[in-house]
């Protein structure tokens, strides 16, 4: 029992210590939130994409093996998304909050939190194995977020003077030119074309790759703003609970019944217990959704995911499923 607790904690703890460090950087005023936002952009655009590029480029593994997992995750996400949307549309009185609520219940921070956890669990090969999930989540989450928020648009953003309108073509462009997707494509093209990168290039990209996960976790911590917790706290709590515990309780046993074990089941657990990414707040803001709800759900789900993920990994390990 103690060994399983140590295992679960050793996967989750380092990640959340880094997030706490990010939070303390802001709290102790070493850096401002604006600076951290810029570092976050730098990290997402260059470091994380370098990380994905290097892992895929260095490895001989293929995403073909993870196809059954991809199909399961796709179906599970679509079904839970539809059910949550139907229930939310019938029960939530403030229609402007419906889309934001639905987004908060399905959107996971897989690109940062998820990859970090998979890296802790299975090393570089795990990250390569999860690259298919990464591509799928980037495309699927953005598409579903637009789908559920479009019908409920209103000028609800309190901290934005002029809510920006979202046009479909630039949004599609944003999804496909996401640095992580471009990194996956580039790594694939360089690998299949048989090009050998010079030492200088691999070393430079390697440096950026090495700082990607720690830096992105610190920026997640710096983006946690407890001052933003306001508005419909009950609704935000419900969304965060569904995101981190509710869906996991239903989907992880289904994945076990479907025969997923080891890294597969760990990826399912990570995807359905990690909190919302900061992109969910940005999306709520640009789609004129309920920004307060998105921000509160982001903070609450990140905090809840510490317990949800530790618990999920502990149970799976205790049952000998991973």
């Amino acid at each position, binding site marked *: 029992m103690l060994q399983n607790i140590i295992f679960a904690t050793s996967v989750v703890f380092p990640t959340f210590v880094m997030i706490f460090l990010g939070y303390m950087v802001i709290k102790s005023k070493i850096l401002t939130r604006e600076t951290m936002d810029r570092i976050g952009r730098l990290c997402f655009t260059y470091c994380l994409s370098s990380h994905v590029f290097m892992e895929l480029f260095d490895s001989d593994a293929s*995403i073909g093996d993870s*196809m059954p997992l*991809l199909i399961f995750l796709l179906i599970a996400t679509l079904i839970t998304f539809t059910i949550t949307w139907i229930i939310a549309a019938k029960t939530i009185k403030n229609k402007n909050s419906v889309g934001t609520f639905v987004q908060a219940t399905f959107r996971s921070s897989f690109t940062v939190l998820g990859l970090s956890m998979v890296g802790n669990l299975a090393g570089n090969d795990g990250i390569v194995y999860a690259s*298919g999930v990464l591509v799928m989540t980037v495309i699927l989450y953005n598409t579903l977020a637009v789908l559920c928020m479009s019908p409920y648009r209103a000028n609800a953003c309190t901290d934005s003077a002029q809510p920006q309108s979202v046009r479909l073509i630039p949004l599609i462009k944003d999804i*496909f030119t996401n640095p992580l997707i471009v990194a996956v494509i580039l790594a*694939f*093209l360089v690998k299949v074309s048989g090009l050998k990168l010079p030492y200088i290039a691999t070393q430079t990209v390697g440096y950026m790759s090495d700082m990607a996960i720690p830096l992105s976790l610190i920026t997640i911590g710096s983006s946690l703003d407890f001052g933003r917790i306001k508005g419909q706290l009950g609704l935000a709590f419900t969304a965060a609970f569904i995101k981190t515990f509710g869906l996991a309780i239903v989907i992880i046993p289904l994945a076990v019944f479907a025969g997923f074990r080891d890294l597969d089941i760990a990826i399912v657990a990570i995807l359905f217990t990690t909190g919302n990414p900061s992109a969910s707040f940005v999306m709520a803001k640009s789609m004129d959704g309920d920004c307060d709800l998105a921000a509160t759900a982001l903070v609450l789900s990140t905090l809840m995911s510490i317990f949800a993920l530790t618990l999920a990994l502990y149970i799976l390990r205790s049952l000998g499923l991973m």
Partner: protein
Amino acid sequence: MEKRKFILSQESRDMIIIVCALLTYLTHEAFLEDEVQKMLLLIGFSILALVLSLLYILTNRPLKRKEIKTEIILNGLILLAMANFIYKAIIFS
């Protein structure tokens, strides 16, 4: 009514390339097992990239000197990769 001239913009070309590269990647990694089929897929993608480049050059004439240099380098790389894929396809078959 005046006939509108078709122009392939740099942006549209990039988007088509990215989406097709993504589809090629997924097909190559997830659905194809035969090495020859994989190489044929990559040759097809290379041809598409070359055709789009040609279309871009033809519909945006006259190009600037810098743009011409970029296109020559880009197409040179694509041709080299294509030769590599054809060579591998022959070996595997």
